[in-house]
């Protein structure tokens, strides 16, 4: 499955629109990571454990989006957008959406 955030795919032509597809996940941080992050707050800087957690979660949201596209018979998702929002203290929602399309390579 081709996933891009542009409206078109280089070297490909869109032959059918399949509609909007989306995937989301809500993740809570866990205590061990939180303690580490609390210590990191003393000096500031990157929170590697959280970066990993969000990377993994975003991948899951994208996979859900791609699964939905597959169900619609699409072979690509174009114009993908991401949003992140905090839904409760210590929980973040990661949301990915895009347009499922069928593409073919330009001869």
């Amino acid at each position, binding site marked *: 499955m081709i996933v891009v*955030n542009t409206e078109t795919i280089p070297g490909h032509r869109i032959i059918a629109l399949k509609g909007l597809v989306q995937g989301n996940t809500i993740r809570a941080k866990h205590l061990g990571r939180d303690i580490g992050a609390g210590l990191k*707050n003393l000096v500031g800087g990157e929170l590697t454990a959280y970066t990993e957690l969000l990377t993994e979660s975003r991948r899951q949201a*994208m996979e859900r989006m791609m699964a939905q596209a597959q169900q619609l018979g699409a072979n690509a998702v174009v114009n993908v957008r*991401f949003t992140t929002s905090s839904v409760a203290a210590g929980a973040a929602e990661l949301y990915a959406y895009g347009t499922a399309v069928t593409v073919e390579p330009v001869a």
Partner: protein
Amino acid sequence: MDDLAGAVFLLLWLLVVIGLPIAFIITGRIREKNHFEDIARREAIHRNFPVIDLSFLPAGMTGSRGTLVTGQVVIASDYLKNFFAQYRQIFGGEMKSYQTMMQRAKAEARLRMIEEARKLGAVAVINVRFETSQIGQARGKSAAMSEVLCYGTAVMT
């Protein structure tokens, strides 16, 4: 004997109250400086690699494939930055400490995206977007955590 114990206690107390924050400030500053140097070094490597936020390739370039690439960072400010930021908010103006924090995070996220694209053998990254969000607060105090996401389409020949 009581005097000695009192003096030792006072010394320890001063060390904790004044020494620790200073140690944290210095550590934070050193890490920030090292990070900026690291960013400059990595940027020099990718200087000629086109990274643009237009949705098409620059004239004269062609691509046959594209794929999504992302780079992300979660960063925290520290308690002292928050403490000083509170006073800054009385008078307003630029918050330098937060500005450098976000600058580091954005540069780091962008570089991670570029590095992923280059690993895939891309010739350019187009339609680059940045997204920043606050993902919650560290336990207890209000040391804010922010997430910076940078994403775009890597184009391969």
